């Protein structure tokens, strides 16, 4: 492929050689170092493909061999330029596009953050913008080390930052430390374990500290369950000393939650009528204007999609394509049937259970019942769960 491109760049010609000394002609040419790309024999003549600049060296050889040479075809870049030499604007256009590509490649048109979990992309991009690094910045103005240091200083739990600049893309690689909260917890001065909710203690195992409750006790939120110290007693049972420790233990508590959820049978439903998509290209702009696509209709849903154009994986251009899909709808009154109502209520209930606690809980009793009253479906009742106190 590259060879073909080089051949095209220098230009080549097809010549027709006729006469009776063609093999002699070939031998002399090869002796003089004239190369041919191909030689095709057709009865008393040969079609030779050769480099254009070697053509003038044939003059002597042709006379010596008494053959006739005729140029059939000229191909390649020099001939293309010669043929289009009067089309100045075309060359100007090609040149301008190359200059524009070069100028665009001097700036950053896309910033991405990788490896972040707790910090959102927007947060880090905002911080970068405060530090003068935003879309459209001149690449030489970016000081990688300084930027890395600034990010590390601002976010103490980001332990490693690497700034990578490839093409027109700035990639911020981040590694976060997840254990930092736990370390802080251990350093906390708070030593007692307290009840967070009202309930009944199901079981208690103390690893360090003094247990203040036993299984079966009723506790209220804020009660001390395990005290963060223990007494040292002598043989007669008198307290000699009290030692502070960090309370630790596993406590299970029975907690009762009340649950109430209600949905109406009648509701407003949307019926989509038709869709309309419009496109717009924006150069050097990254903000979406809501009124961008003209008048907004109150009974329509709008879906916006923004895509940044790129030449290669790392060569992003400051050109954004906005796609807006307008879905017009009509509101009408609709009713849920019984099974739909029950499934919605069940879904809500499961969602409630999932969000009850981060840790897994065990449901001991579930008294939630679904009733149909005056055009509403109501789910209400108590749930008794066994959960760990931490």
């Amino acid at each position: 492929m590259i060879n073909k491109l080089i051949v095209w760049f220098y230009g080549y010609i097809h010549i027709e050689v006729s006469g009776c000394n063609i093999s002699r002609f070939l031998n002399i040419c090869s002796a003089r170092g004239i190369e041919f790309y191909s030689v095709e024999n057709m009865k008393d003549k040969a079609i030779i493909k050769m480099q254009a600049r070697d053509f003038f060296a044939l003059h002597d050889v042709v006379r010596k061999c008494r053959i006739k040479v005729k140029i059939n075809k000229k191909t390649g870049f020099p001939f293309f330029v010669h043929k289009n030499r009067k089309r100045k604007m075309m060359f100007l256009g090609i040149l301008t596009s190359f200059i524009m590509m070069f100028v665009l490649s001097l700036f950053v048109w896309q910033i991405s953050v990788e490896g972040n979990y707790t910090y959102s992309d927007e947060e880090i991009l905002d911080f970068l913008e405060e530090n003068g690094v935003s879309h459209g910045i001149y690449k030489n103005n970016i000081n990688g080390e300084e930027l890395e240091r600034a990010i590390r200083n601002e976010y103490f739990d980001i332990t490693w930052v690497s700034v990578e600049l490839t093409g027109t893309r700035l990639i911020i690689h981040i590694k976060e430390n997840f254990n930092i909260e736990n370390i802080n917890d251990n350093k906390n001065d708070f030593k007692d374990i307290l009840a967070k909710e009202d309930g009944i203690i199901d079981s208690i195992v103390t690893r360090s500290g003094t247990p203040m409750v036993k299984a079966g006790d009723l506790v209220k939120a804020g009660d001390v369950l395990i005290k963060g110290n223990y007494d040292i007693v002598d043989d007669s049972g008198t307290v000699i000393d009290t030692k502070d420790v960090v309370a630790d233990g596993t406590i299970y508590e029975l907690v009762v939650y009340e649950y109430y959820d209600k949905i109406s049978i009648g509701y407003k439903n949307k019926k989509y009528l038709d869709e309309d998509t419009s496109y717009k290209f924006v150069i050097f702009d990254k903000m979406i204007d809501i009124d961008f696509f003209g008048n907004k209709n109150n009974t329509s849903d709008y879906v916006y999609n923004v895509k940044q154009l790129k030449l290669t994986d790392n060569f992003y251009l400051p050109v954004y394509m906005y796609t807006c899909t307008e879905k017009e709808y009509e509101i009408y009154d609709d009713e849920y049937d019984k099974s739909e109502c029950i499934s919605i209520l069940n879904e809500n209930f499961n969602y409630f259970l999932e969000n009850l606690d981060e840790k897994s809980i065990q449901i001991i009793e579930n008294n939630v019942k679904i009733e149909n009253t005056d055009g509403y479906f109501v789910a209400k009742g108590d749930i008794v769960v066994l959960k760990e106190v931490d």
Partner: protein
Amino acid sequence: MGLGFKITDKLELPKDLLLGAMNIYLTGSYEAYIENYKSIIEYNDKKISVRGKKNIVIINGKNLKIDNFTKTDMVIKGIISEVIFDK
């Protein structure tokens, strides 16, 4: 086999350089790559005769065509039916 061949064979020297032999690589019957040739004796689309330093190689076939013709090597394309060595 001459003495020269035996010596270069024992010493594992490049034979094409020392004996002035032609290198011919055939790709099926479609393509022949010839190195170290001296000159072309005969050339048409059915027969190509090439002179080396010591012998002549005749390639017979159909629609024969020379590709990439330089001072030291050439590629012959077409339907090759036989390769003959002649003194």
